[in-house]
């Protein structure tokens, strides 16, 4: 009982004396079939608090905040808002009570302006003009500059997120939930976000913050609640913990270090790109300009850069989702493949992991076994004279589950029911288990917890050690520094000369990411290294 009491009150030091919690959950439970995504969770959110919600992939973080925000109905338990129990019928009621939420995946229309997007997301009945004026005022007050008349497609990811945040702030929420807001941001954009959150706190609001970046949590958050396997395991003050101790609480054990095998040897060129230029397929896309690089077996090449500088277009050109007229622009395993379809490229031994998990890497409403078939049908013995070998597809699911510790409610669920990080582990596993000669992967650990990220990075290193050529696009410079042998930067459709990782300082990469070129001498030196 004693321990229980302590769990209810996260701040025995009396920090909140004289105030009452803004939001509390008591025994909050969400069941999917006989799987418990949330198991009797009690948490207290106080005014003027930035509260972190931590946990491994699939621990139940998103499920918990969706229940709080009225997006899903809990199976049992209570939610108390300023001390009184409430039953939310949906997000619009949550908003009208003073809850706001910023989702990890944006819900914006590319061809509408900022103001139009905000208007669509508000429940209010004020005129468009009043709303625009208020939008400008709110964005100015919080130092989140936005031009209401710009169309969304022109904006960077960080700016798009700003729209979502401003939209939430315009409702004047007492309590704001952010689900992995910094996963897609550059470090500078993340810093800006933290200033806003500090300010919200100073205004007496509360923030619930989901993130896998523990250093960030230590810097920003006053309290941290840790979930493991759907249960709350602890509440602590993250400033008094280390990133390692937080990770231990999340996993319930130590996290393995990523180790690069020492004897990694580079062999023959397996992926060569020669002067690849490609007009964008979509109205708002980026043109690829004279991209060339060579990637040998045993080697990992990292591509850094701010999102939206042509990384998506490069991925499509390499995978064969977009064909180029000149076969020689993309050479896979010595064979000119620029004109070959994605299936033919897979047959040459290439494998691909796109950035967007739902809807691109997988069909959300289809089972995992069917999603294994999606990329495996060409070359993995899953199809026999046109007939699907269901046992083979299920075996791929089982092997990926085992090798990459994919946590799910049943053996073969729909892709959309997996938590974000677990789906990512499945997709990466699905491709690595095919033993590719060339792997092209975008944002491999986007939204993946520290433990699982280590597993995925280790798998990429092991794949290279086994002789494959690996191309990794990532916004996370630490990740690239950890696994890549060379790093190149993408800017406005151009790809810089790759730098050897040991020479690729943050300063140099930052310059390249901003579009400036390095000193000629320095660049020559780095290439020579």
């Amino acid at each position, binding site marked *: 009982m004693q321990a229980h009491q302590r769990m209810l009150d996260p701040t025995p030091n009396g920090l909140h004396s004289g105030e009452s919690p803004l939001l509390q959950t008591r025994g909050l439970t969400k069941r999917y079939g006989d799987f418990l995504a949330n198991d009797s969770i009690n948490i207290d959110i106080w005014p003027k608090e930035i509260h972190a919600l931590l946990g491994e992939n699939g621990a139940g973080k998103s499920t918990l905040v*969706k229940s709080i925000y009225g*997006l*899903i109905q809990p199976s049992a338990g209570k939610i108390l808002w300023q001390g009184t129990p409430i039953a939310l*019928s*949906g997000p*619009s009621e949550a908003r*009208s*009570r003073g809850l706001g939420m910023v989702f990890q995946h944006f819900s914006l229309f590319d061809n509408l302006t900022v103001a139009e997007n905000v208007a669509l997301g508000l429940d209010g009945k004020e005129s468009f003009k009043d709303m625009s004026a208020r939008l400008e005022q709110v964005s100015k007050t919080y130092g989140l500059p936005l031009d209401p008349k710009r169309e969304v497609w022109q904006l960077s990811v960080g700016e798009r997120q700003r729209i979502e945040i401003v939209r939430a702030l315009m409702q004047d929420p007492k309590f704001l939930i952010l689900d992995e807001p910094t996963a897609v941001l550059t470090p500078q954009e993340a810093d800006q976000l933290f200033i806003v959150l500090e300010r919200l706190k100073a205004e007496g609001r509360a923030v619930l913050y989901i993130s896998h970046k523990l250093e960030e949590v230590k810097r920003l958050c006053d309290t941290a609640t840790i979930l493991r396997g759907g249960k709350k395991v602890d509440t602590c003050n993250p400033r008094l913990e280390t990133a390692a101790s937080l990770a231990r609480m999340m996993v319930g054990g130590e996290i393995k270090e990523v180790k690069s095998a020492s004897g990694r040897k580079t062999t023959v060129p397996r992926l060569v790109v020669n002067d690849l230029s490609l007009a964008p397929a979509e109205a708002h896309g980026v043109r690829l300009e004279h991209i060339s690089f060579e990637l040998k077996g045993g080697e990992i090449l990292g591509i850094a850069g701010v999102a939206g500088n042509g990384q998506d277009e490069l991925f499509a050109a390499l*995978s*064969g*989702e977009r064909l180029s007229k000149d076969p020689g622009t993309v050479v896979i395993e010595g064979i000119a493949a620029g004109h070959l*379809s*994605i*299936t033919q490229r*897979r047959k040459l031994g290439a494998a*691909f992991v*796109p950035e*967007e998990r739902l*809807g*691109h*890497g*997988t*069909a*959300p*409403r*289809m089972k995992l076994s*069917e999603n294994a*078939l*999606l*990329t495996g*049908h*060409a070359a993995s013995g899953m*199809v026999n004279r*046109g*007939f*699907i070998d269901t046992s083979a597809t299920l075996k791929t699911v089982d092997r990926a589950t085992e090798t990459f510790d994919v946590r799910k409610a049943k053996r073969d669920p729909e892709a959309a029911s997996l938590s974000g990080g677990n789906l990512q582990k499945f997709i990466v596993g699905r491709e690595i288990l095919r033993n590719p000669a060339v792997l092209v992967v975008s944002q491999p650990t986007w939204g993946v917890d520290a433990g699982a990220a280590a597993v995925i990075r280790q798998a990429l290193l092991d794949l290279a050690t086994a002789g494959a050529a690996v191309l990794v696009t990532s916004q996370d410079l630490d990740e690239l520094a950890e696994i890549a042998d060379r790093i190149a930067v993408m800017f406005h459709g151009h790809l810089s000369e790759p730098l050897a990782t040991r020479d690729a300082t943050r300063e140099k990469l930052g310059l390249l990411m901003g579009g400036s070129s390095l000193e000629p001498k320095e660049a020559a030196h780095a290439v020579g290294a």
Partner: protein
Amino acid sequence: MQLVLEKRAERSNTIALVSPLIAIGLTIVTMVILFAILGKNPLLALHAYFIAPLTDSYSLQEIAVKATPLVMIAIGLSLCYLAKAWNIGAEGQFLVGAVAGSWIAVKTQGTDAGAWVLPAMFVLAAAAGALYALIPAICKVKFGASEILTSLMLVYVADLFLDYLVRGPWRDPHGFNFPTTAEFDPVATVPLLIEGGRLHLGSIIALIVVAAAAILLGRTIKGFEIRVVGAAPRAARFGGFNANQLIILTFAVSGALAGLAGIIEVAGPVGHLQPGISPGYGFTAIIVAFLGRLNPLGILIAGLFLALTFIGGEQAQIAMKIPLDVTKVFQGILLFYVLACDSLILYRFKLVFPNRQVARGAG
């Protein structure tokens, strides 16, 4: 107070299963009101529509006969619709198939041709239906023309072409100037399953088509391709599946099945080519496909149900003088409710009270 549609966070699987049943229920309620307005006793009318046809062997056979073209066409349409390719012109493909198959029957009339005639008619009808369906498919893929409009408009072309043939070149010289061909020879006629009955070989073919579609969709990579292209186009492209090729393929298959259904109808129950061989099978099959949830077994059941409404409508006309067009009204209302109920799988109704907060705050 305001009624709004709100997106559900989770797809409701229960509603996915019961939605066709809700739709049927709502349709029946609406029909009862309609019968009452027409001054007919609703209970007697419902009995004539849904119960009476099930009570004698002749009507039961007739239901199977009517369900045959509906099911065959709807299976083809379901492949299109699963791939999100909207073939609305099955009626035209049905007529073109009927005409093409009849060509052999007319040309071999009285020549003592052998047993090859009927199979040849089937093959030609299927090929013609497929080619006819390819017109909108190719216009869509090459020029981006809306397949909904082009396939629909081609229905009228086919209808008038058939009309021209039976009034002109193919008219039966001994037919008292009626717009019809001569009665087909026995070798050009679909054999009956029961001597003196109505049930014919076509129903067996329809069952084979249902089984083949179930295997195609459930077990083969082609079927997977059809489903994934419709469900997640970008993922399908990533999987290496070509949506345009699939539009061509599904249109061709559905055209072939509609064409085959057309010749079976002409060479079976009708026995000769004439205008009006179809009471709108190609359009009713759209309802069948959706009511059957684009699932082969579901389509078989839905096809039988809609066939029942055709027979029931005839009985109601004879017994109670209810106009035959009421059947079409019934089918239209049913499609409306099916589509409406389907949106409840992803959305839910919600009552919004603008001043609810105020009310709560006061209370």
